């Protein structure tokens, strides 16, 4: 059963012309899909449509309408600088009217799941980039969403931190198996994270190709060194270059 879909959506911005489309995308329950494309191809726009933060100029968006059923992890941790990690994670529940003590308890559990039970009282400025991103992830998971949208969440992190976080996202995903859409311009992250990779063309973004990768999630150790990983990454890189009108 599909959790959310975009059908022939097009987005036009006044003065900037067409940013996306026509573009189709359907996400099945428990599936992890990666959107890969050159900068400005409209992949973040597609994510905002699915989050309900933007409306398409044409086409239809089907999404889970309930509060907290769709969560987003943005490019930056996007935390309230004046609030503790606990208060930041409890926010979605408290906005939904959950009793404060109950919300804080669930937030503490969510922080423990991302390995931050020791940083409950810390303010965002006291956290490292990777820890702040984990708080952001805990906030996205605290409502137990059906659809989790990740908008280049590793962009500002160093290689070791991003690999740790990628593996942890898979472990967390395995607990409740939400559908995940992962936007990135990093080909190897896409192959690692998702079992289906949608390669988009340059703006206005359209589907250039869809590549199925190894369906086993979470990834086994040393997955990045396998031939399968390498060949999938090469295939996507070739598609990406071709979609921008260049030879690989």
């Amino acid at each position, binding site marked *: 059963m599909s959790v959310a879909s975009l059908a022939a959506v097009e987005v036009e911005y006044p003065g900037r012309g067409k940013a996306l489309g026509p573009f189709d995308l359907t996400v099945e329950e428990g599936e992890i899909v990666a959107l890969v494309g050159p900068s400005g191809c409209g992949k973040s726009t597609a994510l905002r449509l699915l*989050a*309900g*933060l933007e409306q398409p100029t044409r086409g239809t968006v089907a999404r889970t309408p309930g*509060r*907290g059923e*769709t*969560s*987003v992890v*943005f490019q*930056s941790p*996007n935390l*309230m*600088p*004046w*609030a*503790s990690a606990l208060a930041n994670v409890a*926010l*979605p529940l*408290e*906005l*939904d009217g959950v009793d404060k003590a109950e919300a804080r308890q669930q937030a503490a559990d969510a922080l423990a799941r991302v390995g931050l039970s020791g940083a409950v009282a*810390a*303010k*965002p*400025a*006291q956290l490292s980039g990777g820890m702040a991103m984990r708080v952001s992830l805990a906030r996205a998971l605290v409502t137990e969403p059906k659809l989790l949208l990740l908008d280049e969440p590793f962009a500002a992190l160093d290689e070791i931190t991003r690999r740790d976080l990628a593996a942890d996202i898979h472990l967390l995903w395995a607990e409740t198996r939400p559908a995940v859409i992962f936007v990135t311009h990093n080909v190897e992250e896409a192959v690692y994270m998702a079992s289906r990779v949608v390669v988009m063309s340059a703006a206005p973004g359209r589907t250039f190709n869809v590549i199925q990768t190894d369906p086993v999630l979470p990834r086994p150790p040393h997955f990045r060194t396998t031939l399968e990983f390498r060949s999938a990454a090469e295939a996507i890189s070739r598609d990406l270059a071709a979609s921008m009108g260049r030879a690989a």
Partner: protein
Amino acid sequence: MNRAVADIAAPLVLIAVLLAGWEAACRIMEIPSYFLPAPSEIAKAAVNSAPILFMSAWNTLFMALKALAVASVLACGVALVVALNRTLEKAVQPLAVALQVTPVIAIAPQVVIWAGLAHPERAIVALAVIVAFFPIFSGALTGLKATDPDLERLFDLYGATRRQRLWRLRIPSSVPFVLEGHKVAGGLAVIGAVVAEFVAGSGGAQGLAWRILESSNRLQTARTFAAVIVLAIMGALLHAALRYAEQAILKRLRGR
């Protein structure tokens, strides 16, 4: 370490050199004290009148702080109401600017009459409130509108109500701007109070401005200078205190 010492010593040395030059010039040219007192005479006057200067400084400071408190409540309240309604904001903005660009001295005589000649301190506080209002209002309004667009999007995503957005996003976002506004307003409140004291020009509110007027009228020029110096020190201390409070609150808020 050496650099820190130099940073503190440099202005002190400059002041010492200037004072020495001033002292020497007064003595060599035998300038009469009522025309330009030497620094040593000003120091003597300051010590002799210390209790009364201190009392007067406290009176002026107290009126300025009262004005700052009233301005704070008024300005934050109006900014909050105005921030919720665009039409109201458009309506209030020109009035607030008009209030800011009107020199306080131009309206002071009338305010003194309204307050009643028997209550100059009321007029002084009211005028200081008028001067202190704008920076706080402007800071609060800017802060209430300066929310992080990404956090706005997060609140959109979770379907926050207007009320939740106000209490959980806009008011906390405005705090640094409000604090900055108070810091500016503190200095202005002192200036407003002193200007108003000059206009009130009576001994009814015995602030520093009254001491300056009184000494000047009696040709006690050294005492006039002493009062001006006390005023400058008081202003600097108030500014330092407000800056310290601002930093302490922000540090507490952000955890760093």
